[in-house]
């Protein structure tokens, strides 16, 4: 059995590697090791070299398993590095086997990740690059050519203190993060300087992901109140704008508070707002 094998080899460390499948949606702590489904079967009964027949061909082909945030690879197993709930997503295409495992954790401090769209504040302009504060350990650098339609003669109109919505092209622990406001085709696709007025405030990273989930009720309800515009940055920053200052402030308060409210409390607040 996988567990018996786990005890004999790791009894010194006191760890028992458990199957990832059994720990889905449960709380995991850093230091735990998880076995992937293929490994359990190999060590199960009948592991004298015989493979049990499988009816679904998908699990037979050892597809690539992606270990997402909060997990690391240690040998053939997954090692948990953050505390939270273990989640799994099956591959959509069917051909890229294995699926994705990750830990759903909560934190306020953002660590730059390549490909993330973030809101940054321009803090300095030095020569050909802007220094943008994204909430990480270092300010990210943004070249003035990384805007749509920017050339050496035609510089973008960016001042110190402006808000920028861009994505990271380089983000690792060894180098200074670099961001751009252009996608791989050369189009802006919504990135660049965020317009005038509005309010920028900070929330936890988990709330951003919750609000950006495809089936988020909060946003649908908020959208029915009055015309507004929101920009979400994966670094925990949200920028909101509505027609009047009061509406903007109400919106900001709702978004900050909805993290700790139950669905009923939220509905009460929305109904009160709709009346007034």
């Amino acid at each position, binding site marked *: 059995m996988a567990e018996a094998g786990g005890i004999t080899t790791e009894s010194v460390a006191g760890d028992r590697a458990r199957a990832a499948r059994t720990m889905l949606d449960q709380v995991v702590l850093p230091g735990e090791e998880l076995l992937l489904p293929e490994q359990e079967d190999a060590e199960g009964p009948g592991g004298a070299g015989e493979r049990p027949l499988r009816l679904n061909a998908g699990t037979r082909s050892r597809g690539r398993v992606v270990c997402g945030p909060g997990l690391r690879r240690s040998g053939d197993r997954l090692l948990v590095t953050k505390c939270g709930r273990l989640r799994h997503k099956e591959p959509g295409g069917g051909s890229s086997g294995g699926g994705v495992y990750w830990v759903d954790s909560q934190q306020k401090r953002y660590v730059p990740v390549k*490909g993330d769209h973030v809101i940054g504040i321009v803090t300095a302009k030095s020569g050909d690059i802007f220094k943008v504060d994204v909430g990480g350990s270092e300010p990210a650098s943004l070249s003035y050519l990384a805007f749509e339609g920017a050339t050496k003669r035609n510089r973008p109109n960016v001042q110190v203190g402006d808000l920028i919505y861009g994505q990271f092209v380089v983000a690792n622990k060894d180098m200074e993060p670099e961001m751009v406001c252009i996608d791989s085709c050369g189009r802006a*696709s919504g990135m660049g300087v965020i317009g005038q007025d509005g309010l920028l405030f900070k929330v936890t990273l988990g709330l951003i992901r919750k609000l950006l989930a495809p089936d988020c009720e909060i946003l649908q309800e908020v959208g029915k109140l009055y*015309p507004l515009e929101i920009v979400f940055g994966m670094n925990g920053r949200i920028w909101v704008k509505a027609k009047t200052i009061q509406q903007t402030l109400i919106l900001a308060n709702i978004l900050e508070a909805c993290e700790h409210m139950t669905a009923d409390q939220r509905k009460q607040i929305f109904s009160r707002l709709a009346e007034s």
Partner: protein
Amino acid sequence: IKFMQRGLDLETKKQLEEEEKKIISEEHWYLDLPELKEKECFIIEEQSFSLCEDLLYGRMSFRGFNPEVEKLMLQMNAKNKVEEVEDEAVELDVSDEEMARRYETLVGTIGKKFAKKRDRASYEEDENGHIKPTVKVKKMFLKPQ
């Protein structure tokens, strides 16, 4: 004398190369370890949440506050769900008015490229950054009276 020759023959070239290799291989440092073969790993590490959860596009606008952002929302969220966007066929056609507008400003922009440094200052820009084509007054010779 061999060193002044423009080209060495093949044989001498080969001999020289071999001598060089011998010298190099003796001085080359190498590790006396058995060759380690990297195990084929089936686990890929990714630090990004966008692969795990299908998150929506970060910019949103509701009830027509920012029409461009609303258009973007449809485009980007449709891309995630791999839906066919059939509006593109309609947008390929440019209306005559837009063509006329484009050409109006194009004349100014291209004209600016060929204008001399003194004349460049005379090109003004209106609110949108479009260059207004100004009529240049050519300086004629004034007869002294």
